[in-house]
């Protein structure tokens, strides 16, 4: 795709062309001092910002997961909810997040990233309780179950 570089004066004279270029992906405007300015769709910027934020988080997570020691809550920071998972599960989260980010950038839609994070957070909340944790992560056997009766008023 051809990228036209507009001059600052074009913002007045070629307003429609500048806006059309921005709508189509990006409009580059060269200011009088030579600074390049870019106008692009808000949704595209949101994807780029989200991708940058999550990529940084993912990089930090990968370092923590690779550490041989137990990672502290302080080190996890905004990922402290991951403390209920063992290293294997933390690695699985990292892999899923990575795939969702790549797909999200390609699709220009990071909703898959939000879904991955939301699903893992739901799982983390279930594991916070020791009783639930013992069943969900323990060696559960079909013999551990008894008949449930239909709820009646």
């Amino acid at each position: 795709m051809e990228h036209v570089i507009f001059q600052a004066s074009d913002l007045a004279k070629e307003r429609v062309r500048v806006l059309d270029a921005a709508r189509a992906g990006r409009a580059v405007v060269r200011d009088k001092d030579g600074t390049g300015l870019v106008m692009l769709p808000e949704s595209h910027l949101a994807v780029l910002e989200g991708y940058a934020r999550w990529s940084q988080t993912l990089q930090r997570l990968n370092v923590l997961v690779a550490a041989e020691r137990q990672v502290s809550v302080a080190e996890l920071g905004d990922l402290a909810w991951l403390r209920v998972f063992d290293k294997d599960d933390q690695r699985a989260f990292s892999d899923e997040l990575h795939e969702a980010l790549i797909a999200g950038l390609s699709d220009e839609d990071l909703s898959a990233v939000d879904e991955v994070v939301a699903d893992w957070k739901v799982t983390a909340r279930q594991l916070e309780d020791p009783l639930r944790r013992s069943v969900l992560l323990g060696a559960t056997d079909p013999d551990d179950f008894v008949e449930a009766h239909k709820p009646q008023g």
Partner: protein
Amino acid sequence: MSNSAYTPFGPARHPGGKPEAKPGYRVLVHKKFRNRWAEVVDRVGLQQAQQFWDHVAATPGQKSPIASITILKGKAGLPMADGWSRTHHYEISGAGRIDYQYHNEYAAGAVGDPHRVVAIMTISFGSH
């Protein structure tokens, strides 16, 4: 369109009458949560409790128009044995959460006939 009363093609009747509906799922609850199952109506309300029952007894694993269902991630979502589904997390808005797995051909022991079973693994009340 013809005005003739003669209609060469029409729906054929199922031999022997209506086909039998597929049997529903037998519902089991983990022993550690049987007390919570006993109080489920008091805690989430009869309607919500019955809606959950209808869901697991007929269509476990499928989307529900009235509840949010998530498949748990990592080891918490693994099937407890061969043939079991992953762990499904059924969330009753603001009232409670139930985790379950299901099996479409569960045979208890060597002599049991295969049948469809849902196993409720955990129950918790209130919002997160």
